[in-house]
C-alpha cells in the first residue's frame, strides 16, 4: 500500500470518529452549547482541556524549537505547564463557583460595568482570533504534506469537519471530540518517540532515555549531543543562558498568558463542582505532561539523528553526498521547508553554524557556508522518516497533527462565539433574547467565526508567527490580572480595572509594535528586533509579564483614590471564595 493510502486511511478514520461523536452529542440548550450541560467528569474534562490547550504549536513546533535552542528553549516547557498551577489555585475554582458561561461575564458582573465587559470581550476576541489563524495554517501544512492536496483544499476539509461538530454540538460536541482527539494525538506523539528512544538508548521511556547512555558511543546522550554540535560550531545543547532576566520574564509571560487564555478557562465551567475544577486542572496537567515530558527527548534525539544522517561518519569526517540523501530530505525539499545550496560545489551537504569563532575551522575544511536549512516545524512531522519507522507511524503522525490543530481551533471558536452571542448580543444589545434565539445566535456566530478563520488561514497575514506572541501578551497583560483582582481583592472597583486592563494592554502592544512593526506592518518598527536593542534585555515576547505588573499597579492606584465598590459587589466577591452553594452553571 502506498504511503498516501495509509495516510488517507488514518486521517479519514479519525475524521469519521469526530463526525460520529458530533451526531451523538448534539446540543439542545444554551447550557449544553456553552458549558456542555455542566456535567463533565473532571478526568474527562482534564483530557479535553489537554487537547484544547495543546495546539499545532505544542505538537508540531515545540520539539523543533527545543531542538534548535537546547536548554535556552526550556522556557516553553516550563511556561506552557506552569500556568496550570496558577489556574488551579488562583482562577478556576472561583470562576466555577461564580457559575456563569463566559469570562467577560465575570468581569462585567464583578466590576459592575458594561465597559469592563466590552474591554474583556475585545481582548478575548483579539487573543482568540490571532491564535486560531495559527491552528488553521498548521492544519493546512499537515494536509498539504500528507494528503497531497493543496493547503486551501485541506483547510476547507478541516473547516467542514470543525463546522459539523462545533456548530451542532457546541461545548458538548467539542468536549467529547477533544477527548477523542487527545487520544489520537498522544498516541501519535508517543509511538515514534518510543521507537527512537529505543534505537538510540535502549530505554523505552523517552523522558528517561533523554538522560541515559547513547548506546552507539557509550557516552550519555546529552554529552554526545553536546560534543557533536560543538564540533560543528553550534552552542552546546545544554549550555546555560546569560540573559536570565529575559528567560525568567518570558517563562512568566507564557505562564500567566496560559492561565489567562479564555478558551482554557471556560473548560473549567463544564465540571459539576468547585472541588472538581481543582482536580480537573491537575488531570489536565497530567495529560499535558505526557506530551511535554516526551517533547524534550524527541528534540534532542531528533537533532542527534539529523546530524548523524548528514555526517554518517561523525561530524569531523566527510558529510553525506547530496545524490545519496535519504528520501525524506527529498520529500521535504518539495515543500520548501528544507533547502540545500551547494556553496562549495563538492556535491556534499555541509550543515554547520557560521560564526567568527568557527570560521577558521570551516575554512580549513573547505566549507564556504552552511548549505542546509531545516525549518523547525518539520522535525516532529519528519521524525518517523528520519528514524526509518514503518509507514503506519507516518499516517499516525498526520492524524495526530490534525487532531492537535483542530481540537484547539474548536475550543477557540467556541470562546469567540460565546463572547459574541452571550456577552455582546445577550449581554449588551438584546438582553430580552429568548433561549432558543440565543442558541441560534451562538450557532451563527460560530459559523461566521469558522469562515473568517478559514479565510485567514488561507491568506495568512504576513505576521502569522508574531501573532501568537500577541495572543499570550494580551492574555497575560489584560485578562489574567483582571480576573485575579476580581477574586482576591474587594477594593478594586470598575474604574480601576478598566484603567488597569487598558494600561496593561496598550503598554504590551506598544512594546511589541516598537520591535515588530506598528500593527505588524513590515518595516515600520521603530527599533530593530535584536537583543542589543531590547530595553534591559527584555524581548518583546517577554513583555506580557511586565504588562501584567503595570495592569496591577494602575488598577490599585486608581481604585485607591476612587470610591469603594458597592456592598453587593463585596458580597459577590465573598461568595465566589467559598465552594458552598455552587450548583451548576446558571444563566442570569
Amino acid at each position, binding site marked *: 500500500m502506498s504511503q498516501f493510502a495509509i495516510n488517507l486511511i488514518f486521517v479519514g478514520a479519525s475524521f469519521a470518529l469526530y463526525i460520529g461523536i458530533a451526531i451523538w452529542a448534539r446540543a439542545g440548550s444554551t447550557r449544553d452549547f456553552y458549558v456542555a450541560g455542566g456535567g463533565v467528569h473532571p478526568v474527562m474534562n482534564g483530557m479535553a482541556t489537554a487537547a484544547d490547550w495543546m495546539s499545532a504549536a505544542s505538537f508540531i513546533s515545540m520539539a523543533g524549537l527545543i531542538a534548535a535552542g537546547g536548554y535556552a528553549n526550556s522556557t516553553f516547557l516550563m511556561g506552557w505547564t506552569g500556568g496550570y498551577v496558577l489556574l488551579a489555585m488562583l482562577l478556576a475554582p472561583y470562576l466555577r463557583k461564580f457559575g456563569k458561561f463566559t469570562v467577560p461575564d465575570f468581569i462585567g458582573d464583578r466590576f459592575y460595568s458594561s465597559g469592563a465587559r466590552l474591554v474583556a470581550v475585545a481582548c478575548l476576541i483579539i487573543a482568540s482570533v490571532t491564535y486560531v489563524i495559527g491552528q488553521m495554517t498548521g492544519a493546512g501544512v499537515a494536509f498539504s504534506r500528507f494528503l497531497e492536496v493543496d493547503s486551501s483544499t485541506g483547510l476547507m476539509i478541516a473547516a467542514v469537519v470543525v463546522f459539523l461538530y462545533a456548530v451542532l454540538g457546541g461545548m458538548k460536541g467539542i468536549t467529547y471530540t477533544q477527548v477523542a482527539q487527545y487520544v489520537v494525538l498522544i498516541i501519535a506523539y508517543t509511538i515514534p518517540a518510543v521507537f527512537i528512544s529505543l534505537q538510540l538508548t535502549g530505554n523505552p521511556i523517552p523522558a528517561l532515555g*533523554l538522560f541515559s547512555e547513547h548506546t552507539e558511543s557509550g557516552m550519555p546522550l546529552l554529552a554526545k549531543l553536546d560534543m557533536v554540535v560543538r564540533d560543528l560550531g553550534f552552542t552546546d545543547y545544554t549550555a546555560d543562558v546569560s540573559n536570565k532576566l529575559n528567560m525568567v520574564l518570558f517563562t512568566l509571560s507564557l505562564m500567566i498568558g496560559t492561565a489567562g487564555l479564555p478558551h482554557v478557562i471556560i473548560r473549567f465551567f463544564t465540571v459539576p463542582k468547585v*472541588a472538581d475544577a481543582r482536580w480537573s486542572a491537575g488531570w489536565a496537567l497530567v495529560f499535558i505532561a505526557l506530551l511535554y515530558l516526551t517533547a524534550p527527548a524527541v528534540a534532542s534525539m531528533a537533532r542527534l539523528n539529523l546530524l548523524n544522517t548528514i555526517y554518517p561518519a561523525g561530524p569531523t569526517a566527510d558529510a553525506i553526498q547530496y545524490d545519496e540523501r535519504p528520501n525524506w530530505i527529498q520529500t521535504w525539499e518539495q515543500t520548501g521547508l528544507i533547502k540545500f545550496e551547494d556553496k562549495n560545489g563538492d556535491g556534499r551537504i555541509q550543515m554547520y553554524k557560521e560564526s567568527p569563532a568557527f570560521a577558521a575551522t570551516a575554512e580549513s575544511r573547505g566549507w564556504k557556508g552552511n548549505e542546509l536549512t531545516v525549518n523547525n516545524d518539520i522535525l516532529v512531522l519528519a521524525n518517523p522518516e528520519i528514524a526509518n519507522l514503518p509507514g503506519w507511524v507516518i499516517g499516525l503522525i498526520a492524524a495526530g497533527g490534525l487532531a492537535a490543530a483542530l481540537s484547539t481551533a474548536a475550543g477557540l471558536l467556541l470562546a469567540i462565539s460565546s463572547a459574541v452571542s452571550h456577552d455582546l448580543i445577550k449581554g449588551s444589545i438584546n438582553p430580552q433574547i429568548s433561549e432558543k434565539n440565543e442558541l441560534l445566535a451562538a450557532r451563527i456566530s460560530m459559523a461566521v467565526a469558522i469562515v473568517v478563520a478559514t479565510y485567514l488561514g488561507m491568506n495568512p497575514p504576513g505576521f502569522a508567527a508574531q501573532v501568537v506572541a500577541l495572543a499570550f501578551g494580551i492574555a497575560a497583560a489584560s485578562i489574567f490580572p483582571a480576573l485575579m483582582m476580581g477574586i482576591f481583592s474587594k477594593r478594586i472597583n470598575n474604574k480601576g480595572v478598566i484603567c488597569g486592563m487598558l494600561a496593561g494592554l496598550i503598554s504590551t502592544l506598544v512594546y511589541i509594535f516598537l520591535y515588530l512593526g506598528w500593527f505588524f506592518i513590515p518595516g515600520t518598527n521603530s527599533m530593530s528586533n535584536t537583543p542589543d536593542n531590547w530595553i534591559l534585555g527584555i524581548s518583546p515576547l517577554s513583555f506580557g509579564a511586565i504588562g501584567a505588573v503595570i495592569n496591577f499597579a494602575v488598577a490599585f492606584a486608581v481604585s485607591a483614590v476612587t470610591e469603594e465598590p458597592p456592598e453587593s459587589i463585596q458580597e459577590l466577591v465573598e461568595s465566589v471564595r467559598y465552594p*458552598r452553594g455552587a450548583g451548576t452553571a446558571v444563566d442570569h
Partner: protein
Amino acid sequence: MADDKKMAEAYWQANLRLIAGCLVVWALASYGFGILLRPMLSGISVGGTDLGFWFAQQGSILTFIALIFFYAWRMNQLDNKYGVHEE
C-alpha cells in the same frame, strides 16, 4: 451568622496561606532550580548534564503536577473543616 462569617474568614486565610506556600515551591522548581540557581546546582550531575537542566526540562513539570494534586487534596480537607464544602 457571626460565627459563620468568622469561619469563612478563617477558611479564606487558610487558603491564602496554602496558596502562598504552593507558589513558593512553584517558583523554586522553575525560576529557581530551572533558571536562576542552575549555576549553583551544576555540581550535581544527571545523565550527561546537571540538575538544573533536568529541572528545566522535566523536574519543574513533575513538581507542578504534584503541587496541584496536593492543593486539591488539602483544599478538600479545608472545605470540610470550615464547613464550606458543597452539599
